């Protein structure tokens, strides 16, 4: 998988929030085979220093980090958060989220495009959390985004791919972009479906972190992403309306 000119073997990216314990987070990252995990920024207390302990844990895993701007509802918030993340994490990567709706956490596509323009001009490599809207995607690509992350369905909803047609159209419209389905993945079959559509990868978080056995679920997702990609590359049979015999009819005995 190509990410801004770098090649990664794993097509599964994992969030780091809401795990039962730091140890299970670490084991889940290993079981998933993920080479990239998402991280965030929050206020730090001088006494507790919770962020320092978390950062040390992530560094021990050796994976690359993708900082997000989760929780930002304005261009200014997102840009400032991205700038702070670049300094703290030492990366130009940013998963750009500008949230526009409190109930669905749907991206504010207008703010997203504006923030993407500002950040790409400032040297960031933007992973844009977007919808399957083709016009917004076009503007994001124009702004310099080479990685687009359309939602499968609302964040944390576990509803899978809400708009398969839209995602398929997006893949066809942007063959050169790195497209990752982000958000709404609930079970491994959802991830496999995204991969079968030709998506370059998937990013998920709660589906593993909140599973009864996160480590086993991380492995299940690893296998499903690999299976989905393999299926896509194998050129799947296309659906048809009517039956077609799978057993040859030529030479069929007649008992009429």
């Amino acid at each position, binding site marked *: 998988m190509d990410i801004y000119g770098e090649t990664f073997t794993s097509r599964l990216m994992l969030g780091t929030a809401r795990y039962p314990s730091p140890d299970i987070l670490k084991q889940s990252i290993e079981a998933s085979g993920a080479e990239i995990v998402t991280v965030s920024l929050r206020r730090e207390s001088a006494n507790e220093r*919770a962020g320092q302990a978390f950062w040390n844990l992530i560094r021990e895993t050796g994976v690359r980090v993708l900082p997000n701007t989760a929780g930002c509802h304005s261009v200014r918030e997102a840009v400032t958060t991205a700038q702070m993340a670049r300094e703290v994490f030492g990366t130009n990567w940013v998963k750009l989220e500008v949230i526009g709706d409190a109930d669905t956490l749907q991206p504010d596509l207008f703010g997203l495009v504006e923030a993407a323009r500002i950040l790409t001009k400032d040297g960031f490599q933007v992973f844009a959390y977007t919808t399957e809207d083709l016009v917004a995607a076009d503007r994001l690509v124009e702004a310099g985004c080479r990685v687009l992350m359309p939602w499968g369905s609302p964040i944390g909803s576990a509803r899978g791919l809400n708009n398969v047609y839209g995602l398929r159209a997006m893949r066809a419209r942007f063959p050169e972009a790195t497209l990752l389905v982000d958000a709404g993945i609930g079970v491994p079959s959802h991830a496999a479906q995204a991969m079968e559509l030709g998506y370059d990868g998937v990013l998920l978080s709660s589906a593993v972190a909140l599973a009864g056995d996160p480590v086993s679920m991380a492995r299940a997702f690893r296998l499903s992403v690999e299976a989905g990609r393999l299926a896509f590359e194998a050129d799947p049979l296309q659906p048809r309306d009517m039956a077609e015999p799978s057993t040859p009819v030529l030479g069929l005995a007649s008992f009429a």
Partner: protein
Amino acid sequence: MRVVLNGEPAEIDADTLDRALAELGYGDAVVATALNSEFVPAPMRGEARIAEDDRIEIIAPMKGG
């Protein structure tokens, strides 16, 4: 001097951001800073003057999805 530190009222003596970090006990912690909603890069903290009622944000790595 009265300031708003990470959304909470606080009293500090420091008049620059780098001194405020030291006074508050952040030491060598990996943090990023903003003053009145503007990002202040680490090398600029010594020049970032703090005034009464300024809003200081000190943030660090956290779990994310």
